[in-house]
């Protein structure tokens, strides 16, 4: 079992710093997912851990030993690349055996390990094929198999599913989760897809522009985002975010919205506050609500309904309700939001409150 620690890791390409001091502890046997928009430095961070990029400053420790100057080969980690990076001129068997041959393992043991991994991943039938003759999903399995046979101290995945079609992605996601349950092991997984992150992770690390925005369990990030970025990034469809001004009462006012807050809410009159509320935390009410909207588009899926609404002076508001609603395009609605599920952020985007008393 392997524990990985990052201590104020910085990475610069020439004069451009792309990782600005990252502190993180990955616990033994944990499945950690790095998630963030494209270009935020996820891959760079993963490659630093793998040993494929030098560290500009800071310290990387595996099981307590600093490995800043240990080569990729000697860190004992396996990596699955986004492009799979299978050797095109070798058969599937050779692809999986290559790493073991390089560590001069006896032939019989190599064979046993390759066959065991192949059986687990159901690729035994393709062992003699070249990667060219495999489908995307099969190549993916081979790439994972190549990582498994080495029995590494930890697995690193760089967007392993992003080249697969949607259906296969869901299947492989489940298989990866099953794999982790089966072989255990520390895994670090990079993705830009927050659904993958939510479904796979023990803990999620949200990155933006080379900084960690928040680390936590999936539902912790969902329920208690520490800043605007995490609030907007986690959850699909996105959380509704509206910029408001605090008035006496206290209440939040912006365009067609007037949200009265319970006394003792952590806001000061005159300040600007961003209010965040998830689509499923909006009720449609008779009479006066918090926001008056007009439905611009309704998605009736049978089991659930999504309403996309316009309101004066506000961005689009999304409403998600279970079941079927007798709502039509162009209809005016009054929405009330659940104070217990209301998130407030200050002008710097830091959280003021995740949920208030019902007022």
């Amino acid at each position, binding site marked *: 079992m392997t524990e990985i620690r990052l201590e104020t890791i910085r990475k610069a390409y020439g004069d451009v710093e792309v990782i600005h001091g990252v502190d993180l502890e990955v616990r033994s046997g944990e499945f950690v997912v790095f998630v963030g928009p494209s270009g935020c430095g996820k891959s760079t961070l993963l490659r630093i851990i793998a*040993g*494929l990029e030098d560290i500009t400053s800071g310290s990387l420790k595996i099981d307590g030993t600093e490995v800043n100057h240990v080569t*990729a080969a000697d860190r004992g980690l396996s990596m699955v690349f986004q*492009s799979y990076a299978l*050797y095109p001129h070798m058969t599937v068997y050779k692809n999986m055996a290559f*790493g073991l041959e*390089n560590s001069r393992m006896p032939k019989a043991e190599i064979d046993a390990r390759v066959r065991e991994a192949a059986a687990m991943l159901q690729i035994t039938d393709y062992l003699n094929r070249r990667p060219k003759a495999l489908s995307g999903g099969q190549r993916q399995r081979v790439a994972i198999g190549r990582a498994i046979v080495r029995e590494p101290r930890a697995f690193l995945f760089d967007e392993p599913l992003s080249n697969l079609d949607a259906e296969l992605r869901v299947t492989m996601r489940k298989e990866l989760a099953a794999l982790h349950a089966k072989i255990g092991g520390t895994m670090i997984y990079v993705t830009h897809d927050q659904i993958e992150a939510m479904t796979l992770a023990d803990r999620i690390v949200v990155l933006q522009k080379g900084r960690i925005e928040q680390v936590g369990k999936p539902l912790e990030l969902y329920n208690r985002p520490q800043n605007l970025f995490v609030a907007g990034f986690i959850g699909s469809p996105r959380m509704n975010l509206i910029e408001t001004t605090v008035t006496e009462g206290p209440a939040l006012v912006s365009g067609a919205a007037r949200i009265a807050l319970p006394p003792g809410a952590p806001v000061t009159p005159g300040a600007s506050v961003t209010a965040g509320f998830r689509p499923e935390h909006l009720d449609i009410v008779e009479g006066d609500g918090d926001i008056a909207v007009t439905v611009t588009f309704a998605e009736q899926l049978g089991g659930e309904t999504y309403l996309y609404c316009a309101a004066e002076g506000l961005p689009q508001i999304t409403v998600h309700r279970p079941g079927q609603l007798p709502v039509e395009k162009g209809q005016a609605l009054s929405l009330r939001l659940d104070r217990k599920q209301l998130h407030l952020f200050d002008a710097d985007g830091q959280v003021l409150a995740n949920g208030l008393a019902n007022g």
Partner: protein
Amino acid sequence: MADATAQSRPGVLAMLTARRGRGKLHWTDVFSYIYLGLGVLLMFGPVIWLALSSFKTPAGLVEFPPTLLPLGQISVPVEGYDDPLLLFSVTTETGETRELAQIRRIGIVRQMVDPAAPDERIDVPIDAAEPIREFDMAWENYTDPLQRFDFTRYLWNSVVVTVVATAITLLINSMAAYGLAIYDFRGRNGIMLLVIGTLMIPITVILVPVYLVVTQMGLVNSLWAVILPGAATPTGVFLLRQYMLTIPRDLIEAARMDKASEWAIYWKVVMPLAMPALAVLAIFSVMWRWNDFLWPLIVLNRSEVYTLQVGLNAFQGELNVQWHYILAMTVVTLIPVVVVFAFLQRFITTGIAASGMK
């Protein structure tokens, strides 16, 4: 294209008589065939001419007007003469034709003799006699140099030089290319420019210095003197490096994670993937080495180390040129290049297309 192969593939004849329209002869067909025909004639004409001429006797070669096929004049043994005499068909004044052998030619008169009655001499004006020929392959053009003049040895030397030099060229050029393609370091492009820059230096400029080095090393008159100096070629480094740059970085990094040593990455990952470029370079190297003349001529002075090209030169004396031997041995020198091409040509098209070189 793809489904044409999947169904029934057309035969050679159908391919050669293919037309644009179905059955009808479009003007572009005519144009294409003339154009292609001219191309074939230009490309293959000289080679075929060479091959056919290499079977001609010295007399057949200097004959005017020249004949296409190797036709030798028939000669017959005649009693009372040591050498066989050339046979002519002679039209006599009475209009009948006889077969006579020529003893000698004096001015415009041939002194001739009837092989059946060797005692009687007949004078015939030259334009009344027509040589009698038959199709005759002069194999001795090939067998003589190969047996008497040690051409097998030259052939062997050429093969050794070509094979060893090509192997060394591939090895060290690919190593340099690996360094310049796989490692990312400051000044990498500068070094590459320097390497390519050496292409600008004409060989004649470095001839003397290189000769001095080779002499100092005591290599003169050994095949190493030919093999070593040209082993590192800027063209080869450039070609291989550009190709290696197209190998995805992920593969190299995957190999690093797989505990592969740098040598293993070079030998087991990059080299197999650079096969097309290596094949192209191999073809070039074989052609360069096989056809190389100037440098071997300078450093090889003893006939037992001659390569074919230098050996060929020996037939070209100051006073007389033994064209029949030169032609025959030229054909021999063409054969390996053709064979190499035949085996590696599927790489060369992809390679040339990929590297944009020729």
